[in-house]
């Protein structure tokens, strides 16, 4: 027991250190540049204590749950050698963690407002709601597909940069055909899909997979799933914008 207590204390100190830069930046700009006092100092200190404690708990939870379960699943799938289930799992993980993501819901709603302003969508609540839902589904499917491709790449040992660079090439070409109102959203959508819980899990899963397949290197082959998850929404959202403009 004392050992786990000292371990947790170390995690607390580490989160304090992780948070120090952000506190320093905000305090410096508030006091030295804008020259204004800090409002509600007690509230800020309580908030900061919660942030530090929360980060330490999260990192402990990573080591206890997200990392081991990601690795255990990867090992179990390779032992059973059932490709269909493995790919289905990859899709479910990508789709399931993205579809309800609050950041994505917010971006989709904002995108519908922009599209209505640009005249791509009829400016009525139902039409905008429809547009936002279709867009959200498009992004969730794209993340599911990207993990399927990413897992397949780990199995085959294909070099990541060839796939990602060709992906970027396609994105650049699509930018010239996509409606202006969708481009900003498309470029931002890659970033919103990867939540704080998904990233550690997907990373552990990829590394675990590369670890349990003979001939694969955990560093060279195991990383890269997140890169796919960030790239494919760009393509899918631009394709969505092109199809929507073209069809409707």
């Amino acid at each position, binding site marked *: 027991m004392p050992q786990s207590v000292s371990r947790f204390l170390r995690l607390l100190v580490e989160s304090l250190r*992780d948070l120090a830069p952000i506190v320093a930046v905000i305090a410096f700009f508030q006091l030295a540049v804008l020259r204004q006092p800090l409002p509600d100092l007690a509230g800020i200190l309580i908030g900061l204590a919660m942030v530090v404690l929360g980060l330490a708990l999260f990192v402990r939870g990573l080591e206890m749950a997200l990392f081991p379960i990601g690795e255990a699943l990867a090992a179990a799938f390779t032992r059973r050698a059932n490709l269909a289930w493995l790919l289905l799992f990859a899709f479910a993980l990508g789709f399931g963690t993205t579809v309800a993501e609050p950041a994505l819901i917010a971006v989709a709603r904002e995108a519908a407002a922009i599209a209505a302003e640009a005249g791509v969508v009829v400016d009525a609540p139902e039409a905008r709601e429809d547009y936002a839902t279709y867009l959200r589904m498009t992004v969730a499917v794209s993340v599911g597909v990207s993990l399927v491709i990413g897992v397949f790449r780990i199995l085959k040992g294909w070099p990541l940069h060839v796939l990602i660079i060709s992906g970027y090439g396609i994105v650049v070409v699509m930018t010239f055909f996509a409606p202006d109102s969708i481009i900003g959203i498309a470029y931002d959508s890659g*970033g919103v899909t990867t939540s704080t819980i998904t*990233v550690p899990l997907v990373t552990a899963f990829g590394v675990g997979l590369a670890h349990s397949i003979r001939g694969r290197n955990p560093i060279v082959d195991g990383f890269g799933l997140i890169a796919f998850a960030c790239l494919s929404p760009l393509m899918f959202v631009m394709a969505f914008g092109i199809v929507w403009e073209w069809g409707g």
Partner: protein
Amino acid sequence: MWDLLRHLLETGISTLGDVAPIAAILFGFQYLVIRQPLPHLKTIITGFVYVALGLTLFLVGLERALFPLGTLMAEQLSDPAFINGVEGGPSSSDWRDYVWIYVYAAAIGFATTIAEPSLIAVALKANQASGGGISAWGLRIAVAIGVAVGVSLGTFRIITGTPLHYYIIAGYIVVILQTLRADRTIIPLAYDSGGVTTSTVTVPLVAALGIGLASSVPGRSPLIDGFGLIAFASLFPIVSVLGYSWLVAWTRRRGRGE
């Protein structure tokens, strides 16, 4: 006090909403497809509780302590009165008048990235998987520098009103050139670090800056120009991580006197 408890409860429920589908998929596949009991089930469940509780405390604390100040600060720094140095009138349209904005953008980009939980996770994993060969701190600092440069350049783009895709396409070309020369082992990690930087801590503070700036610079629309900072924040870490690995290799070669 009640307000704090309500805030905790609401955020807790929404975090559970994030964890639940993931847990359902994981346990569903574990018990229906793999059909093997999980080793250390109790530890894993405790870990999930820690993750949910930790994220809840983390988010509530950020929303109470840092986000209001950060958003207010973004508004104040992009306020015409602060930029012009005098009250009244529209904001300057000369990009050289916005020095504090560039400094703030770089500083907040760096600082939020250091605190980003998903980057901490990836750095830990990279350190483990490389058997200690990749330093977790080195990686995090390299990524944070990339975000700092990216966000700062992104604010410059909003102020000058130049098209987003010029910068992004130029960035892609730099990434491709670097990839051709990079050590093969760092490439996947560099590509992954682009995506992990943009989450819980960075997005709200950086988006507030983009929207504040786009609403005060004359001729910019917050709807169209406010976007795009996130895209910068996820592209530039790739450049900086590839650059960092090149630097490490170069100093090693020099150390050996080759």
